[in-house]
């Protein structure tokens, strides 16, 4: 740091200062999820890429990282889909049109959209995993001719938990979208298949070399079941992308909370290529095939305490 302190100081940006954003619309999607449409108070566009996230502030409650779930081509406003999980997210559920929040970002490493051009795209979403994938789906749909097949597998706990139902209907009726919907706990009216995302996944035929997979699937353990299925299909590790979640405070690779071995989920992710995660001990739970071997070894208890 031999630089002149004055010069140094003048270059400093307010990393943690959020800008105000106004709620244009708040729509309840399910009992636990709300969709917020926001507009930045400074009139600028968020300028996010597919897979990136923002830090949203409910002042007095705190900040939470939330994936931007609207298409990057939508620039006037952007959308966040929030599940009520804790204090911040519950507070976000109380928002109405006209209210304001603080926004930092967009942050993180999104999907490699250029690489995807010309490929078949397989999207796997489980529960709250759909929102971070939605910008990608929209992007592909908006530029449909640039891509090969678009296959979407979406699993939810019950029909009541399904997000973006209008869009689901659209995808289901689109000729050039192969859409598979599955729920774990059907109700009386449910006519579709029952089970977890790996059930339809198993049946899908793909051409491994020209397929690119993007997946985000709710609870951490689900990742390794999905990974297992994909590897079974012979997909190269380089072609698989996962969106991960960790605890996160700063969003800029400083606070240490989201560290996954040597990676920071906030700057190196949240979208990771499967091959980059190979061999990382702390990713084992998510990545190892679901054999007793690998899973068992890790959970070996520390002598009587844990």
């Amino acid at each position, binding site marked *: 740091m031999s630089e002149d302190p004055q010069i140094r100081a003048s270059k400093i940006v307010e990393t943690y200062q959020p800008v105000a954003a106004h709620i244009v619309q708040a729509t309840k999607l399910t009992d636990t999820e709300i969709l917020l449409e926001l507009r930045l108070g400074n009139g600028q566009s968020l300028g996010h890429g597919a897979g990136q996230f923002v830090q949203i502030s409910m002042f*007095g*409650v705190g900040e939470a990282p939330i994936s931007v779930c609207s298409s990057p081509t939508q620039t006037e406003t952007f959308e966040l889909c929030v599940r009520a999980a*804790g*204090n911040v997210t*519950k*507070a976000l559920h109380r928002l109405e049109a006209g209210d304001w929040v603080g926004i930092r970002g967009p942050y993180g490493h999104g999907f490699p959209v250029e690489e995807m051009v010309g490929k078949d795209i397989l999207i796997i979403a489980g529960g709250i995993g759909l929102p971070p994938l939605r910008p990608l789906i929209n992007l592909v749909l908006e530029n449909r001719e640039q891509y090969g097949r678009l296959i979407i597998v979406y699993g939810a706990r019950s029909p009541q938990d399904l997000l973006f139902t209008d869009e689901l209907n659209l995808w289901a009726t689109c000729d050039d979208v192969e859409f598979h919907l599955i729920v774990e706990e059907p109700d009386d009216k449910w006519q579709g298949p029952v089970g977890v995302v790996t059930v339809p996944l198993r049946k899908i035929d793909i051409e491994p070399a020209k397929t690119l997979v993007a997946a985000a699937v709710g609870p951490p353990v689900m990742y390794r079941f999905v990974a297992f299925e994909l590897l079974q299909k012979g997909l190269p590790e380089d072609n698989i992308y996962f969106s991960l979640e960790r605890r996160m405070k700063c969003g800029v690779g400083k606070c240490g909370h989201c560290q996954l071995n040597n990676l920071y989920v906030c700057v190196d992710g949240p979208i990771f290529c499967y091959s980059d995660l190979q061999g990382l001990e702390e990713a084992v739970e998510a990545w190892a095939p679901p054999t007793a071997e690998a899973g068992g070894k890790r959970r070996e208890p520390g*002598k*009587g*305490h*844990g």
Partner: protein
Amino acid sequence: MKTQAKPRVAFFDFACCEGCQLEVLSLEEQLLEMIELVDIVTWREAMSEKSDEYDIAFCEGSITREADIERIKHIRETADILVSLGACATIGCHNALKNQFSMDEVLHIVYGDRAEWFDTISARPITAVVPVDYQVNGCPASLPEFVTVFKHILMGKEYKPPNQPVCVECKLKDNLCVYEKGMLCLGPVTRCGCDAICTSYGHACFGCRGLVDDPNLNAAQDVLAKYGLSVEEIVGKFRVYNNWPELSLEESHSDG
């Protein structure tokens, strides 16, 4: 918020030294700010009025008599939000120390041949009798935590007591660790939130805020044993405050 009526607050006490309520009274200026936000409708220690209608109940003290059980159940039914205030209400504190004797024995020790005039049951914290929505730990209740919990309640936020040991706050305050002075301290296994007040005043931590969620009692036992304490004495040290749920140190000890 403005259109709604102010939430009604009540304070109750069971067997205890009433130090927690007194601490709350000592908030003074802050208390005046709080009264802007809520109506205090019952507070025996501070006012004559009483009301059986309240939304938020702060309860201090331990349950030590049959009649107390009925009383706390009634409070639980009446209040939307029940808060255990202080160590007696939250972890049993010294009150539960008598549980190591039979109740006949303690009554005779104290009242001799008049023992049958009085009744007592094994002491337990309020948290062991009814579910509580918020906890304030400490002996006396830690005031910063009380204010935090108060604000959380009014903002509809959950409050999880910090799951970190006192050592964290000790470090943030740049205290010299009391172990460096050759003294014993329960800080490494005790839940913080007190701003490390005892250790900041050069004293050891006695554990008044209860144990952290997953204390390494094995480590604690090894460390205390280095200072020549027997297992019995170590258990005794923990039991000054931590009496509920029953703490079994012997079992968790793998000889190390």
